[in-house]
């Protein structure tokens, strides 16, 4: 090969190499089916949520309930606090990134304490997956008549009246906490869990993901109205509903408790401070799963 040809080869390879240096081997991000997400990172804080709702039983709250999108916590807020509850961006139990949400309620005698991050609005799609990661630092005992809810779905009927729809809670099973779902549509606890008394881990992040469809055709096992996964395993399917739903959906990451005690104290006291952490919340057109990635 002549010197001129070698020079041409060097030039061409130089150009190729320069082009390769700009992006050789990098993956191509071609879009997203994630409609909305909140990772509690950076400056976003809690502003990605429609509401951050510390509300005590005595009605001192940090924001209304059932309002329109945009009300509630101002953008950039990192905490909302009342006398008995608090929501804050924390760095105590990082899941992905360095921050997560800390939802904390301080139990008092026979008082229901609510603390929720709510995402609502009329723009949510007919069919979507609602995913969040949870971390329970310890086990709590649920006393007689009490409850501990960590995820809620609310609906509105055709008149615009708001109703509760699905409450996903935890029960004390002695040494573990198990999931249960109260179906307001039927007025009963769901007993059709595919896995009886699915346990959630203590001290380890776990993922809960729900599929919610408000389309009229979502009324069969093959096209259900509601499904639930724990750490990627489907544990519940609700094929249909009897009550009216609309496109209005409120999805909450909650820490709502009544009669919760700390089993580590002797004797157990109702003045326990109940804390859970949540991270990487998302609403997506496709399942997020344990390996899903968020923007």
């Amino acid at each position: 090969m002549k010197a001129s040809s070698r020079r041409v080869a060097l030039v061409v390879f130089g150009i190729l190499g320069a082009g390769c240096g700009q992006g050789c081997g990098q993956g191509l991000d071609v879009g997203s089916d994630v409609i909305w997400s909140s990772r509690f990172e950076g400056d976003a804080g809690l502003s990605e949520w429609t509401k951050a709702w510390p509300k005590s039983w005595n009605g001192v709250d940090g924001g209304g309930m059932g309002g329109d999108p945009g009300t509630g916590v101002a953008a950039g807020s990192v905490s909302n606090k009342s006398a008995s509850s608090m929501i804050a961006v924390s760095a105590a139990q990082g899941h992905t990134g360095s921050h997560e949400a800390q939802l904390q309620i301080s139990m008092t005698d026979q008082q229901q304490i609510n603390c929720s991050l709510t995402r609502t609005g009329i723009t949510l799609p007919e069919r979507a997956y609602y995913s969040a990661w949870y971390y329970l630092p310890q086990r709590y005992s649920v006393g007689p008549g009490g409850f501990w809810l960590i995820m809620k779905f609310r609906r509105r009927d055709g008149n615009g009246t708001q109703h509760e729809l699905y409450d996903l809670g935890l029960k004390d099973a002695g040494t573990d906490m198990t999931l249960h779902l109260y179906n307001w549509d039927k007025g009963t606890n769901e007993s059709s869990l595919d896995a009886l008394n699915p346990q959630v881990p203590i001290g380890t992040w776990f993922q809960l993901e729900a599929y919610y469809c408000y389309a009229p055709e979502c009324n069969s096992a093959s096209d259900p109205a509601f499904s639930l996964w724990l750490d990627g395993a489907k544990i519940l399917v609700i094929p249909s509903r009897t009550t009216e739903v609309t496109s209005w959906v409120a999805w909450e990451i909650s820490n709502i408790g009544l009669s919760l005690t700390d089993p580590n104290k002797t004797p157990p006291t109702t003045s326990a401070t109940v804390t859970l952490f949540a991270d990487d919340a998302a609403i997506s057109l496709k399942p997020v799963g344990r390996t899903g990635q968020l923007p």
Partner: protein
Amino acid sequence: MPQPEPLRSLGYGRFLCDVRVVGLVTRFALFATLGASFDAHAEAPGPAPEVRELRAPRQESTAAVPAGASGGEAAPQSMARSSPFIGGTSTCPLPASVWTELGTLVPTERLVAYQATRAASSPMESNPPPAVEIIDLGLKFRVLAGGRAREYRDDAQDCTYRARVAAVFVALAVDPAAVLVEPPPPPVPTPAPASPPPPVVPARLVQVEIGVAVDRSLGTGPQATQLGGGLRVILGRGPVALVVGAAAFLAKDAELNGLRVNQRHDPLDLGLRARWQGSFVEPYVEIGLGLALIYEEALNLDTNASGQTVEPGGFAVIGARLAAQSRVGFFVAGRVEWIPSPVQIRALPTGVVGHAPAFWAGATCGLSVGF
């Protein structure tokens, strides 16, 4: 086969290599005919020259055949002595010398038969005149034979030469068919001629190929067939040349694990071409490295985006240029490309949906122009 020594002795040896005796004799006959016409007009104006047959004095004939008298030629002296075939008073050439030369051209039995025929045609003559008469005219000499007469000029008065010329004339006059003609040598088996080397046409320094192309992705990536165009530049004159190629294609929709994408793949090649120049077809192969610009755009996500990057890989080409000797020709080629590490295609929330194709195969055809 021995060389025709008699004719060589006539002084035409230098022609024998490439001129047959027949051709030589024919040339002589033509020369003789023209000469006769000229002589006849020059020496016998008026009516056409009379063809005379002169009688050779028998005693001279006998006396005119001394051994070695005409250069020591091995003449059939007994026949010359016993035959009144050549007569005349010429001393240069001597009739015997002409007879000797004639014996190398015409078989003796032919001459005898000819003489017998003449004798039979003149039964009244007990001694038929000689069939040939040679007359020495000083700077010229005349030959009479078969009813024809010729005069030849020979200023040098070379008697041997005159004898040869006269013998040829006589041979053609009395029995042209019997002239000793050496049969053509049998065809010498010559080795099969090697196929002529192909005409060496200097390869052009720069060769540009432009054409239409089709490309198909293979493997586990998004499957699509795309159409486009390609350009290749071949640099070098030798059998191995540097090749730089590029192609651009129209984006085409494809699917990857439920994700619909609009995909485009534009390769850029740098390699070597080995070619074999033929008279009409110039086959070639190429191998080299390249970079491919890969473009992917999602079509069915809530938020569609696009991205492109460059993938390094290798390629191989096999093709042929038609009308190889022409400056402008056609080419057709097939190309395969291997991307060892195809780029990942990611979409949220799934993450890695898959990867771009690792293999591509295509074809190109078009015009090839040399400069």
